[in-house]
Protein backbone atom coordinates (compact mmCIF):
# COMPACT_ATOMS: atom_id res chain seq x y z
CA UNK A 1 0.00 0.00 0.00
CA UNK A 2 1.58 3.23 -1.11
CA UNK A 3 -0.80 5.88 0.18
CA UNK A 4 -1.82 6.32 3.80
CA UNK A 5 -5.36 7.44 2.96
CA UNK A 6 -6.15 4.09 1.30
CA UNK A 7 -6.49 2.77 4.83
CA UNK A 8 -10.00 4.26 5.05
CA UNK A 9 -11.23 1.49 2.74
CA UNK A 10 -10.91 -0.92 5.67
CA UNK A 11 -13.86 0.75 7.41
CA UNK A 12 -16.09 0.34 4.35
CA UNK A 13 -15.10 -3.27 3.81
CA UNK A 14 -15.82 -4.09 7.47
CA UNK A 15 -19.24 -2.42 7.30
CA UNK A 16 -19.94 -4.28 4.05
CA UNK A 17 -19.16 -7.64 5.65
CA UNK A 18 -21.55 -6.99 8.58
CA UNK A 19 -24.39 -6.36 6.14
CA UNK A 20 -23.30 -9.25 3.89
CA UNK A 21 -23.78 -11.56 6.84
CA UNK A 22 -27.18 -10.02 7.59
CA UNK A 23 -28.17 -10.42 3.94
CA UNK A 24 -27.38 -14.13 3.72
CA UNK A 25 -28.86 -14.91 7.15
CA UNK A 26 -32.14 -13.24 6.24
CA UNK A 27 -31.97 -15.05 2.91
CA UNK A 28 -31.82 -18.41 4.70
CA UNK A 29 -34.67 -17.29 6.96
CA UNK A 30 -36.78 -16.47 3.91
CA UNK A 31 -35.86 -19.83 2.36
CA UNK A 32 -36.89 -21.55 5.58
CA UNK A 33 -40.32 -19.91 5.46
CA UNK A 34 -40.82 -21.30 1.95
CA UNK A 35 -40.72 -24.80 3.45
CA UNK A 36 -42.13 -24.02 6.94
CA UNK A 37 -44.68 -21.35 6.06
CA UNK A 38 -45.96 -20.97 9.62
CA UNK A 39 -42.51 -20.20 11.04
CA UNK A 40 -42.34 -16.63 12.45
CA UNK A 41 -45.52 -15.71 10.57
CA UNK A 42 -47.00 -13.84 13.54
CA UNK A 43 -43.75 -12.28 14.72
CA UNK A 44 -41.88 -11.33 11.59
CA UNK A 45 -43.83 -11.65 8.33
CA UNK A 46 -42.15 -12.73 5.09
CA UNK A 47 -42.39 -9.29 3.47
CA UNK A 48 -40.18 -7.74 6.17
CA UNK A 49 -37.63 -10.56 5.97
CA UNK A 50 -37.35 -10.23 2.22
CA UNK A 51 -37.06 -6.46 2.49
CA UNK A 52 -34.06 -6.86 4.81
CA UNK A 53 -32.56 -9.54 2.55
CA UNK A 54 -32.65 -7.33 -0.56
CA UNK A 55 -31.87 -4.00 1.11
CA UNK A 56 -28.88 -5.38 3.03
CA UNK A 57 -27.54 -6.72 -0.28
CA UNK A 58 -27.83 -3.40 -2.09
CA UNK A 59 -26.36 -1.44 0.79
CA UNK A 60 -23.36 -3.71 1.34
CA UNK A 61 -22.58 -3.79 -2.36
CA UNK A 62 -22.56 0.02 -2.35
CA UNK A 63 -20.31 0.05 0.72
CA UNK A 64 -17.98 -2.32 -1.13
CA UNK A 65 -17.96 -0.02 -4.19
CA UNK A 66 -17.17 2.99 -1.98
CA UNK A 67 -14.39 1.12 -0.17
CA UNK A 68 -12.98 -0.24 -3.41
CA UNK A 69 -12.96 3.24 -4.92
CA UNK A 70 -11.21 4.75 -1.89
CA UNK A 71 -8.66 1.95 -2.07
CA UNK A 72 -7.82 2.17 -5.76
CA UNK A 73 -8.19 5.89 -6.40
CA UNK A 74 -4.93 7.02 -4.70
CA UNK A 75 -3.00 4.47 -6.75
CA UNK A 76 -4.74 5.52 -9.96
CA UNK A 77 -4.48 9.27 -9.37
CA UNK A 78 -1.08 8.99 -7.68
CA UNK A 79 -2.06 11.18 -4.77
CA UNK A 80 -3.69 10.88 -1.35
CA UNK A 81 -7.48 11.06 -1.10
CA UNK A 82 -8.90 14.58 -0.94
CA UNK A 83 -10.13 14.02 2.63
CA UNK A 84 -10.02 10.98 4.88
CA UNK A 85 -12.23 12.66 7.47
CA UNK A 86 -14.93 13.29 4.90
CA UNK A 87 -14.73 9.64 3.92
CA UNK A 88 -15.19 8.57 7.55
CA UNK A 89 -18.09 10.97 8.03
CA UNK A 90 -19.69 9.72 4.82
CA UNK A 91 -19.29 6.12 5.98
CA UNK A 92 -21.01 6.68 9.30
CA UNK A 93 -23.93 8.60 7.77
CA UNK A 94 -24.45 5.79 5.29
CA UNK A 95 -23.95 2.93 7.72
CA UNK A 96 -26.12 4.37 10.49
CA UNK A 97 -28.88 5.28 8.03
CA UNK A 98 -28.81 1.70 6.73
CA UNK A 99 -28.83 0.27 10.25
CA UNK A 100 -31.73 2.56 11.22
CA UNK A 101 -33.60 1.41 8.13
CA UNK A 102 -33.18 -2.26 9.12
CA UNK A 103 -34.31 -1.64 12.71
CA UNK A 104 -37.22 0.36 11.34
CA UNK A 105 -38.22 -2.51 9.06
CA UNK A 106 -38.28 -4.86 12.04
CA UNK A 107 -40.67 -2.43 13.75
CA UNK A 108 -42.81 -2.12 10.63
CA UNK A 109 -41.57 1.33 9.57
CA UNK A 110 -41.05 1.32 5.81
CA UNK A 111 -42.25 2.56 2.46
CA UNK A 112 -43.71 0.18 -0.04
CA UNK A 113 -41.92 0.17 -3.37
CA UNK A 114 -39.71 -2.86 -3.94
CA UNK A 115 -36.04 -2.21 -3.04
CA UNK A 116 -36.89 1.43 -2.30
CA UNK A 117 -38.62 0.72 1.02
CA UNK A 118 -36.38 3.13 2.95
CA UNK A 119 -38.32 5.92 4.68
CA UNK A 120 -37.75 9.27 2.96
CA UNK A 121 -35.37 10.56 5.62
CA UNK A 122 -33.17 7.48 5.12
CA UNK A 123 -33.19 8.11 1.37
CA UNK A 124 -32.15 11.71 2.05
CA UNK A 125 -29.33 10.59 4.38
CA UNK A 126 -28.13 8.10 1.75
CA UNK A 127 -28.18 10.83 -0.90
CA UNK A 128 -26.18 13.21 1.31
CA UNK A 129 -23.64 10.50 2.08
CA UNK A 130 -23.27 9.61 -1.60
CA UNK A 131 -22.85 13.28 -2.54
CA UNK A 132 -20.08 13.62 0.07
CA UNK A 133 -18.48 10.51 -1.39
CA UNK A 134 -18.70 11.83 -4.94
CA UNK A 135 -17.31 15.21 -3.92
CA UNK A 136 -14.40 13.50 -2.15
CA UNK A 137 -13.45 11.15 -4.97
CA UNK A 138 -14.09 13.69 -7.74
CA UNK A 139 -11.77 16.19 -6.03
CA UNK A 140 -9.15 13.45 -5.74
CA UNK A 141 -9.43 12.68 -9.44
CA UNK A 142 -9.56 16.36 -10.36
CA UNK A 143 -6.22 17.01 -8.65
CA UNK A 144 -4.49 13.82 -9.74
CA UNK A 145 -3.64 11.62 -12.72
CA UNK A 146 -6.77 10.96 -14.76
CA UNK A 147 -6.67 7.36 -15.90
CA UNK A 148 -9.42 5.79 -17.99
CA UNK A 149 -10.02 3.27 -15.20
CA UNK A 150 -10.70 5.99 -12.66
CA UNK A 151 -12.83 7.99 -15.08
CA UNK A 152 -15.06 5.06 -16.02
CA UNK A 153 -15.43 4.10 -12.36
CA UNK A 154 -16.39 7.62 -11.35
CA UNK A 155 -18.80 7.95 -14.26
CA UNK A 156 -20.52 4.79 -13.04
CA UNK A 157 -20.70 6.11 -9.48
CA UNK A 158 -22.08 9.47 -10.60
CA UNK A 159 -24.62 7.68 -12.76
CA UNK A 160 -25.71 5.55 -9.81
CA UNK A 161 -26.27 8.69 -7.73
CA UNK A 162 -28.12 10.58 -10.46
CA UNK A 163 -30.46 7.73 -11.31
CA UNK A 164 -31.13 7.13 -7.59
CA UNK A 165 -32.92 10.49 -7.59
CA UNK A 166 -35.82 8.79 -9.39
CA UNK A 167 -36.42 6.98 -6.08
CA UNK A 168 -37.96 10.23 -4.83
CA UNK A 169 -40.52 10.30 -7.64
CA UNK A 170 -43.56 8.19 -6.91
CA UNK A 171 -46.48 8.98 -9.22
CA UNK A 172 -49.93 7.77 -8.22
CA UNK A 173 -50.40 6.22 -11.68
CA UNK A 174 -48.93 2.73 -11.20
CA UNK A 175 -47.77 2.52 -14.81
CA UNK A 176 -45.73 5.72 -14.51
CA UNK A 177 -44.48 4.55 -11.12
CA UNK A 178 -43.11 1.39 -12.72
CA UNK A 179 -41.76 3.21 -15.77
CA UNK A 180 -39.41 5.32 -13.64
CA UNK A 181 -38.83 2.78 -10.87
CA UNK A 182 -36.85 0.87 -13.48
CA UNK A 183 -34.73 3.96 -14.06
CA UNK A 184 -33.29 3.24 -10.64
CA UNK A 185 -33.35 -0.54 -10.65
CA UNK A 186 -32.48 -1.54 -14.22
CA UNK A 187 -30.23 1.39 -15.05
CA UNK A 188 -28.28 0.62 -11.89
CA UNK A 189 -27.69 -3.09 -12.30
CA UNK A 190 -27.71 -3.40 -16.09
CA UNK A 191 -26.23 0.02 -16.76
CA UNK A 192 -24.08 2.22 -14.57
CA UNK A 193 -23.14 -0.53 -12.09
CA UNK A 194 -21.53 -2.36 -15.01
CA UNK A 195 -19.25 0.66 -15.37
CA UNK A 196 -18.30 0.32 -11.71
CA UNK A 197 -17.77 -3.40 -12.18
CA UNK A 198 -15.59 -2.98 -15.28
CA UNK A 199 -13.63 -0.12 -13.69
CA UNK A 200 -12.77 -2.06 -10.53
CA UNK A 201 -11.97 -5.18 -12.58
CA UNK A 202 -9.69 -3.11 -14.83
CA UNK A 203 -7.75 -1.91 -11.78
CA UNK A 204 -7.43 -5.45 -10.43
CA UNK A 205 -6.37 -6.85 -13.81
CA UNK A 206 -3.73 -4.16 -14.23
CA UNK A 207 -2.36 -5.12 -10.81
CA UNK A 208 -2.51 -8.88 -11.00
CA UNK A 209 -1.55 -9.40 -14.65
CA UNK A 210 0.89 -6.54 -15.20
CA UNK A 211 -0.36 -6.13 -18.78
CA UNK A 212 0.08 -2.69 -20.31
CA UNK A 213 -2.56 -0.23 -19.08
CA UNK A 214 -3.08 1.13 -22.62
CA UNK A 215 -4.35 -2.27 -23.79
CA UNK A 216 -6.50 -2.99 -20.74
CA UNK A 217 -8.16 0.43 -20.83
CA UNK A 218 -8.87 0.33 -24.54
CA UNK A 219 -10.90 -2.81 -24.01
CA UNK A 220 -12.43 -1.30 -20.91
CA UNK A 221 -13.99 1.38 -23.10
CA UNK A 222 -15.20 -1.20 -25.60
CA UNK A 223 -16.85 -3.22 -22.81
CA UNK A 224 -18.56 -0.34 -21.04
CA UNK A 225 -19.64 0.98 -24.43
CA UNK A 226 -21.30 -2.34 -25.21
CA UNK A 227 -22.89 -2.32 -21.74
CA UNK A 228 -24.62 1.01 -22.23
CA UNK A 229 -25.43 0.59 -25.94
CA UNK A 230 -27.34 -2.58 -25.07
CA UNK A 231 -28.38 -1.91 -21.47
CA UNK A 232 -30.13 1.45 -21.88
CA UNK A 233 -32.63 0.33 -24.51
CA UNK A 234 -32.53 -3.12 -22.89
CA UNK A 235 -34.61 -1.51 -20.13
CA UNK A 236 -37.41 -2.24 -22.57
CA UNK A 237 -37.54 -5.85 -21.37
CA UNK A 238 -39.16 -4.53 -18.20
CA UNK A 239 -41.72 -2.52 -20.16
CA UNK A 240 -43.46 -5.43 -21.91
CA UNK A 241 -46.43 -6.01 -19.58
CA UNK A 242 -46.77 -2.96 -17.33
CA UNK A 243 -49.01 -0.81 -19.48
CA UNK A 244 -46.32 0.64 -21.78
CA UNK A 245 -46.61 0.71 -25.60
CA UNK A 246 -46.21 -2.51 -27.58
CA UNK A 247 -43.05 -1.42 -29.40
CA UNK A 248 -41.05 -2.19 -26.26
CA UNK A 249 -41.47 -5.87 -27.09
CA UNK A 250 -39.28 -5.31 -30.17
CA UNK A 251 -36.89 -2.78 -28.66
CA UNK A 252 -36.53 -4.67 -25.39
CA UNK A 253 -36.12 -8.09 -27.00
CA UNK A 254 -33.48 -6.99 -29.49
CA UNK A 255 -31.35 -4.84 -27.21
CA UNK A 256 -31.58 -6.95 -24.07
CA UNK A 257 -30.75 -10.09 -26.08
CA UNK A 258 -27.37 -8.53 -26.86
CA UNK A 259 -26.79 -7.49 -23.23
CA UNK A 260 -25.00 -10.83 -23.02
CA UNK A 261 -22.24 -9.51 -25.33
CA UNK A 262 -20.49 -7.15 -22.86
CA UNK A 263 -20.59 -9.89 -20.22
CA UNK A 264 -18.97 -12.34 -22.62
CA UNK A 265 -16.44 -9.67 -23.59
CA UNK A 266 -15.55 -9.28 -19.92
CA UNK A 267 -14.82 -13.01 -19.66
CA UNK A 268 -12.57 -12.88 -22.74
CA UNK A 269 -10.89 -9.73 -21.46
CA UNK A 270 -10.09 -11.17 -18.03
CA UNK A 271 -8.87 -14.55 -19.27
CA UNK A 272 -6.89 -13.08 -22.18
CA UNK A 273 -5.14 -10.62 -19.87
CA UNK A 274 -4.29 -13.28 -17.31
CA UNK A 275 -3.00 -15.46 -20.17
CA UNK A 276 -0.91 -12.58 -21.51
CA UNK A 277 0.22 -11.51 -18.04
CA UNK A 278 3.92 -11.22 -17.41
CA UNK A 279 3.40 -11.17 -13.70
CA UNK A 280 2.99 -14.11 -11.37
CA UNK A 281 1.09 -12.28 -8.67
CA UNK A 282 1.32 -13.90 -5.23
CA UNK A 283 -2.33 -13.16 -4.33
CA UNK A 284 -3.78 -16.24 -6.02
CA UNK A 285 -7.09 -15.93 -4.19
CA UNK A 286 -7.65 -12.44 -5.63
CA UNK A 287 -6.83 -13.77 -9.09
CA UNK A 288 -9.41 -16.53 -8.63
CA UNK A 289 -12.13 -14.01 -7.70
CA UNK A 290 -11.09 -11.77 -10.63
CA UNK A 291 -11.66 -14.59 -13.08
CA UNK A 292 -14.70 -15.98 -11.27
CA UNK A 293 -16.54 -12.65 -11.23
CA UNK A 294 -16.90 -12.11 -15.00
CA UNK A 295 -17.46 -15.84 -15.55
CA UNK A 296 -20.36 -16.19 -13.12
CA UNK A 297 -21.70 -12.79 -14.20
CA UNK A 298 -21.74 -14.08 -17.77
CA UNK A 299 -23.83 -17.08 -16.72
CA UNK A 300 -26.03 -15.31 -14.15
CA UNK A 301 -26.65 -12.01 -15.89
CA UNK A 302 -25.89 -13.04 -19.47
CA UNK A 303 -27.13 -16.57 -20.06
CA UNK A 304 -29.84 -16.67 -17.38
CA UNK A 305 -30.96 -13.20 -18.43
CA UNK A 306 -31.12 -14.14 -22.10
CA UNK A 307 -33.11 -17.26 -21.24
CA UNK A 308 -36.28 -15.26 -20.47
CA UNK A 309 -35.67 -11.87 -22.05
CA UNK A 310 -37.37 -12.36 -25.43
CA UNK A 311 -40.91 -11.07 -25.13
CA UNK A 312 -42.73 -14.18 -26.45
CA UNK A 313 -40.92 -16.25 -23.79
CA UNK A 314 -41.16 -13.61 -21.08
CA UNK A 315 -44.93 -13.56 -21.62
CA UNK A 316 -44.99 -16.95 -19.89
CA UNK A 317 -42.06 -16.67 -17.46
CA UNK A 318 -42.53 -13.08 -16.22
CA UNK A 319 -42.65 -12.95 -12.43
CA UNK A 320 -42.01 -16.66 -11.81
CA UNK A 321 -39.16 -18.43 -10.04
CA UNK A 322 -37.21 -18.15 -13.32
CA UNK A 323 -36.80 -14.47 -12.51
CA UNK A 324 -35.68 -15.34 -8.98
CA UNK A 325 -33.07 -17.78 -10.35
CA UNK A 326 -31.65 -15.15 -12.69
CA UNK A 327 -31.64 -12.47 -10.00
CA UNK A 328 -29.70 -14.58 -7.53
CA UNK A 329 -26.89 -15.67 -9.85
CA UNK A 330 -26.59 -12.31 -11.62
CA UNK A 331 -26.15 -10.35 -8.38
CA UNK A 332 -23.76 -12.93 -7.00
CA UNK A 333 -21.58 -13.14 -10.10
CA UNK A 334 -21.46 -9.52 -11.13
CA UNK A 335 -21.44 -7.63 -7.87
CA UNK A 336 -20.91 -9.89 -4.86
CA UNK A 337 -17.89 -11.56 -6.45
CA UNK A 338 -16.55 -8.20 -7.60
CA UNK A 339 -16.56 -6.90 -4.04
CA UNK A 340 -15.06 -10.10 -2.67
CA UNK A 341 -12.33 -9.79 -5.35
CA UNK A 342 -11.31 -6.26 -4.40
CA UNK A 343 -11.52 -7.10 -0.70
CA UNK A 344 -9.35 -10.20 -1.17
CA UNK A 345 -6.85 -8.13 -3.12
CA UNK A 346 -6.82 -5.15 -0.77
CA UNK A 347 -6.93 -6.70 2.69
CA UNK A 348 -3.35 -8.05 2.84
CA UNK A 349 -2.12 -4.56 1.91
CA UNK A 350 -4.49 -2.85 4.38
CA UNK A 351 -3.35 -5.19 7.14
CA UNK A 352 0.30 -4.77 6.17
CA UNK A 353 0.76 -8.47 5.45
CA UNK A 354 1.81 -10.69 2.60
CA UNK A 355 -1.15 -12.55 1.04
CA UNK A 356 -2.52 -14.83 3.77
CA UNK A 357 -5.07 -17.60 4.38
CA UNK A 358 -5.31 -18.09 0.63
CA UNK A 359 -6.36 -21.72 0.74
CA UNK A 360 -9.21 -20.94 3.11
CA UNK A 361 -10.24 -18.00 0.92
CA UNK A 362 -10.29 -20.20 -2.17
CA UNK A 363 -12.36 -22.79 -0.32
CA UNK A 364 -14.91 -20.09 0.40
CA UNK A 365 -14.88 -19.19 -3.31
CA UNK A 366 -15.71 -22.72 -4.42
CA UNK A 367 -18.19 -23.35 -1.63
CA UNK A 368 -20.14 -20.15 -2.19
CA UNK A 369 -19.99 -20.31 -5.98
CA UNK A 370 -21.13 -23.92 -6.25
CA UNK A 371 -23.88 -23.33 -3.67
CA UNK A 372 -25.12 -20.29 -5.63
CA UNK A 373 -25.02 -22.33 -8.84
CA UNK A 374 -27.02 -25.10 -7.19
CA UNK A 375 -29.53 -22.59 -5.84
CA UNK A 376 -29.90 -21.16 -9.33
CA UNK A 377 -30.50 -24.59 -10.86
CA UNK A 378 -33.17 -25.51 -8.30
CA UNK A 379 -34.96 -22.19 -8.76
CA UNK A 380 -34.74 -22.57 -12.54
CA UNK A 381 -36.36 -26.00 -12.39
CA UNK A 382 -38.98 -24.63 -10.01
CA UNK A 383 -39.57 -21.77 -12.44
CA UNK A 384 -39.97 -24.03 -15.45
CA UNK A 385 -42.48 -26.23 -13.65
CA UNK A 386 -44.31 -23.15 -12.38
CA UNK A 387 -44.40 -21.59 -15.84
CA UNK A 388 -45.89 -24.71 -17.33
CA UNK A 389 -48.46 -25.46 -14.64
CA UNK A 390 -49.55 -21.90 -13.97
CA UNK A 391 -49.06 -20.01 -17.21
CA UNK A 392 -49.75 -22.77 -19.71
CA UNK A 393 -52.12 -25.11 -17.83
CA UNK A 394 -53.76 -22.34 -15.82
CA UNK A 395 -53.52 -24.00 -12.39
CA UNK A 396 -53.94 -21.59 -9.49
CA UNK A 397 -50.87 -20.01 -7.91
CA UNK A 398 -51.01 -21.74 -4.53
CA UNK A 399 -51.76 -25.15 -6.05
CA UNK A 400 -48.65 -24.78 -8.19
CA UNK A 401 -46.51 -23.67 -5.25
CA UNK A 402 -47.39 -26.89 -3.44
CA UNK A 403 -45.82 -28.76 -6.35
CA UNK A 404 -42.52 -26.92 -5.91
CA UNK A 405 -41.75 -27.87 -2.31
CA UNK A 406 -38.90 -30.23 -3.21
CA UNK A 407 -37.12 -27.45 -5.11
CA UNK A 408 -37.56 -25.06 -2.19
CA UNK A 409 -35.98 -27.61 0.14
CA UNK A 410 -32.97 -27.89 -2.14
CA UNK A 411 -32.76 -24.11 -2.40
CA UNK A 412 -32.73 -23.88 1.39
CA UNK A 413 -29.89 -26.41 1.53
CA UNK A 414 -27.91 -24.40 -1.00
CA UNK A 415 -28.56 -21.25 1.04
CA UNK A 416 -27.11 -22.82 4.18
CA UNK A 417 -23.90 -23.60 2.27
CA UNK A 418 -23.75 -19.99 1.04
CA UNK A 419 -23.85 -18.83 4.66
CA UNK A 420 -21.06 -21.27 5.57
CA UNK A 421 -19.04 -19.99 2.61
CA UNK A 422 -19.62 -16.38 3.61
CA UNK A 423 -18.50 -17.03 7.18
CA UNK A 424 -15.43 -18.84 5.85
CA UNK A 425 -14.63 -15.86 3.63
CA UNK A 426 -14.97 -13.35 6.45
CA UNK A 427 -12.83 -15.54 8.71
CA UNK A 428 -10.16 -15.97 6.02
CA UNK A 429 -9.93 -12.25 5.33
CA UNK A 430 -10.50 -10.69 8.75
CA UNK A 431 -9.62 -13.52 11.13
CA UNK A 432 -6.26 -14.63 12.52
CA UNK A 433 -3.52 -15.21 9.96
CA UNK A 434 -2.78 -18.92 9.83
CA UNK A 435 -0.51 -19.02 6.81
CA UNK A 436 1.21 -16.20 5.00
CA UNK A 437 3.56 -16.03 2.05
CA UNK A 438 7.10 -15.24 3.19
CA UNK A 439 8.55 -11.97 1.99
CA UNK A 440 11.04 -13.90 -0.17
CA UNK A 441 8.25 -15.87 -1.84
CA UNK A 442 6.33 -12.71 -2.57
CA UNK A 443 9.42 -10.83 -3.77
CA UNK A 444 10.45 -13.67 -6.04
CA UNK A 445 7.33 -12.75 -7.98
CA UNK A 446 7.53 -9.02 -8.55
CA UNK A 447 4.17 -7.44 -7.98
CA UNK A 448 2.45 -4.63 -6.21
Amino acid at each position, binding site marked *: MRYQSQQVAWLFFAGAMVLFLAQVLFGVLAGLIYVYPNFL*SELLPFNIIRMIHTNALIVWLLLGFFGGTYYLLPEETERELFSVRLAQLQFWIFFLAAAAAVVGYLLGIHE*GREFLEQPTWVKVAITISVLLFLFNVSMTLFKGRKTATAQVLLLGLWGAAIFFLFAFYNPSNLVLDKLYWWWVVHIWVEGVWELIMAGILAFLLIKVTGVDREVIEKWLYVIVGLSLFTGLLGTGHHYYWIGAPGYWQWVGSIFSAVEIVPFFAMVLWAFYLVYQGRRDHPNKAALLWCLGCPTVAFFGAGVWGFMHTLSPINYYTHGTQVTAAHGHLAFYGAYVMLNLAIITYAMPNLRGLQPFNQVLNMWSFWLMTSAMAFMTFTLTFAGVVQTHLQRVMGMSYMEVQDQLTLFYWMRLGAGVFVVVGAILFIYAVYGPVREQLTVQEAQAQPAE
Partner: protein
Amino acid sequence: MGEGLTRAAARNIFYGGSLFFFVVFALLVAHSHYYAASSSIDVVGLNDAVVRGKRVWERHACINCHTILGEGAYFAPELGNVWLRYGGADDPAGAKDALTAWFQSMPSGVEGRRQMPNFNLSEQDMSDLIDFLAWVSRIKTQGWPPNEAG
Protein backbone atom coordinates in the same frame (compact mmCIF):
# COMPACT_ATOMS: atom_id res chain seq x y z
CA MET B 1 -6.07 -8.08 -31.04
CA GLY B 2 -7.77 -4.91 -32.26
CA GLU B 3 -4.60 -3.07 -33.29
CA GLY B 4 -6.59 -0.72 -35.50
CA LEU B 5 -8.50 0.69 -32.53
CA THR B 6 -6.74 3.17 -30.26
CA ARG B 7 -7.73 3.93 -26.67
CA ALA B 8 -8.78 7.45 -27.63
CA ALA B 9 -11.01 6.16 -30.42
CA ALA B 10 -12.57 3.58 -28.08
CA ARG B 11 -13.24 6.33 -25.55
CA ASN B 12 -14.91 8.57 -28.12
CA ILE B 13 -17.12 5.75 -29.35
CA PHE B 14 -18.10 4.98 -25.75
CA TYR B 15 -19.07 8.54 -24.86
CA GLY B 16 -20.72 9.34 -28.19
CA GLY B 17 -22.58 6.07 -28.45
CA SER B 18 -23.79 6.11 -24.86
CA LEU B 19 -25.13 9.62 -25.27
CA PHE B 20 -26.88 8.63 -28.48
CA PHE B 21 -28.53 5.58 -26.95
CA PHE B 22 -29.52 7.51 -23.85
CA VAL B 23 -31.24 10.17 -25.96
CA VAL B 24 -33.12 7.53 -27.97
CA PHE B 25 -34.13 5.80 -24.73
CA ALA B 26 -35.27 9.04 -23.11
CA LEU B 27 -37.37 9.97 -26.17
CA LEU B 28 -39.07 6.58 -26.21
CA VAL B 29 -39.76 6.82 -22.48
CA ALA B 30 -41.17 10.32 -22.97
CA HIS B 31 -43.59 8.88 -25.51
CA SER B 32 -44.38 5.98 -23.18
CA HIS B 33 -45.04 8.47 -20.39
CA TYR B 34 -47.62 10.20 -22.54
CA TYR B 35 -49.11 6.82 -23.51
CA ALA B 36 -49.24 5.66 -19.87
CA ALA B 37 -50.90 8.87 -18.78
CA SER B 38 -53.55 8.83 -21.50
CA SER B 39 -54.04 5.53 -23.32
CA SER B 40 -53.19 2.47 -21.26
CA ILE B 41 -54.99 3.37 -18.05
CA ASP B 42 -58.50 4.23 -16.98
CA VAL B 43 -57.84 7.98 -16.73
CA VAL B 44 -61.24 8.91 -15.31
CA GLY B 45 -61.13 6.00 -12.88
CA LEU B 46 -57.86 7.20 -11.33
CA ASN B 47 -59.75 8.92 -8.52
CA ASP B 48 -58.87 9.79 -4.92
CA ALA B 49 -59.88 6.36 -3.65
CA VAL B 50 -57.50 4.63 -6.09
CA VAL B 51 -54.68 7.00 -5.15
CA ARG B 52 -55.31 6.35 -1.45
CA GLY B 53 -55.49 2.64 -2.21
CA LYS B 54 -52.02 2.71 -3.73
CA ARG B 55 -50.77 4.25 -0.48
CA VAL B 56 -52.39 1.42 1.50
CA TRP B 57 -50.68 -1.03 -0.86
CA GLU B 58 -47.33 0.65 -0.20
CA ARG B 59 -47.77 1.20 3.54
CA HIS B 60 -48.02 -2.53 4.12
CA ALA B 61 -45.30 -3.49 1.59
CA CYS B 62 -47.64 -5.92 -0.15
CA ILE B 63 -45.09 -6.12 -2.99
CA ASN B 64 -42.62 -7.97 -0.78
CA CYS B 65 -44.84 -11.08 -0.93
CA HIS B 66 -47.09 -10.53 -3.95
CA THR B 67 -46.44 -9.45 -7.52
CA ILE B 68 -48.38 -6.75 -9.34
CA LEU B 69 -48.19 -6.92 -13.14
CA GLY B 70 -45.54 -9.58 -12.56
CA GLU B 71 -43.21 -7.45 -10.45
CA GLY B 72 -42.51 -7.94 -6.78
CA ALA B 73 -41.75 -10.96 -4.63
CA TYR B 74 -42.79 -14.38 -5.86
CA PHE B 75 -44.09 -15.68 -2.53
CA ALA B 76 -47.79 -14.94 -2.99
CA PRO B 77 -50.24 -14.65 -5.91
CA GLU B 78 -50.23 -12.05 -8.67
CA LEU B 79 -52.63 -9.22 -7.81
CA GLY B 80 -52.77 -7.31 -11.09
CA ASN B 81 -55.77 -9.41 -12.06
CA VAL B 82 -57.06 -10.45 -8.61
CA TRP B 83 -60.14 -8.33 -9.21
CA LEU B 84 -60.97 -10.43 -12.26
CA ARG B 85 -60.23 -13.70 -10.42
CA TYR B 86 -62.83 -12.64 -7.86
CA GLY B 87 -65.34 -11.97 -10.60
CA GLY B 88 -65.19 -8.18 -10.25
CA ALA B 89 -65.88 -7.63 -13.94
CA ASP B 90 -69.37 -9.14 -13.66
CA ASP B 91 -70.23 -8.62 -10.01
CA PRO B 92 -68.24 -5.72 -8.48
CA ALA B 93 -70.20 -5.71 -5.21
CA GLY B 94 -69.72 -9.45 -4.73
CA ALA B 95 -65.97 -9.21 -5.46
CA LYS B 96 -65.59 -6.34 -3.02
CA ASP B 97 -67.35 -8.28 -0.28
CA ALA B 98 -65.26 -11.37 -0.95
CA LEU B 99 -61.95 -9.48 -0.86
CA THR B 100 -62.97 -7.66 2.33
CA ALA B 101 -63.81 -10.98 3.94
CA TRP B 102 -60.42 -12.29 2.81
CA PHE B 103 -58.49 -9.44 4.49
CA GLN B 104 -60.48 -9.92 7.70
CA SER B 105 -59.99 -13.67 7.92
CA MET B 106 -56.18 -13.42 7.75
CA PRO B 107 -54.05 -15.07 9.00
CA SER B 108 -55.63 -18.39 8.22
CA GLY B 109 -53.39 -20.20 10.71
CA VAL B 110 -53.64 -23.34 8.59
CA GLU B 111 -50.59 -25.54 9.23
CA GLY B 112 -48.25 -25.85 6.24
CA ARG B 113 -49.87 -22.98 4.36
CA ARG B 114 -48.29 -19.58 3.65
CA GLN B 115 -49.65 -16.97 6.02
CA MET B 116 -50.79 -13.47 5.12
CA PRO B 117 -50.68 -11.16 8.15
CA ASN B 118 -53.76 -9.33 9.35
CA PHE B 119 -52.92 -5.69 8.69
CA ASN B 120 -55.91 -4.44 10.73
CA LEU B 121 -57.11 -2.39 7.79
CA SER B 122 -59.92 0.07 8.44
CA GLU B 123 -63.11 -0.15 6.38
CA GLN B 124 -61.86 2.86 4.43
CA ASP B 125 -58.43 1.28 3.80
CA MET B 126 -59.98 -1.95 2.56
CA SER B 127 -62.35 -0.14 0.26
CA ASP B 128 -59.55 2.06 -1.16
CA LEU B 129 -57.20 -0.88 -1.63
CA ILE B 130 -59.85 -2.85 -3.48
CA ASP B 131 -60.60 0.17 -5.68
CA PHE B 132 -56.90 0.37 -6.47
CA LEU B 133 -56.72 -3.33 -7.39
CA ALA B 134 -59.84 -3.00 -9.53
CA TRP B 135 -58.27 -0.01 -11.32
CA VAL B 136 -55.02 -1.95 -11.90
CA SER B 137 -56.97 -4.80 -13.51
CA ARG B 138 -58.12 -2.35 -16.18
CA ILE B 139 -54.56 -1.36 -17.25
CA LYS B 140 -53.90 -2.39 -20.86
CA THR B 141 -50.97 -4.77 -20.41
CA GLN B 142 -50.52 -6.14 -23.95
CA GLY B 143 -52.58 -9.15 -22.95
CA TRP B 144 -50.56 -10.24 -19.92
CA PRO B 145 -51.04 -12.44 -17.86
CA PRO B 146 -51.76 -15.41 -20.14
CA ASN B 147 -54.68 -16.61 -18.00
CA GLU B 148 -56.71 -15.92 -14.89
CA ALA B 149 -54.22 -17.71 -12.60
CA GLY B 150 -51.97 -14.67 -12.99
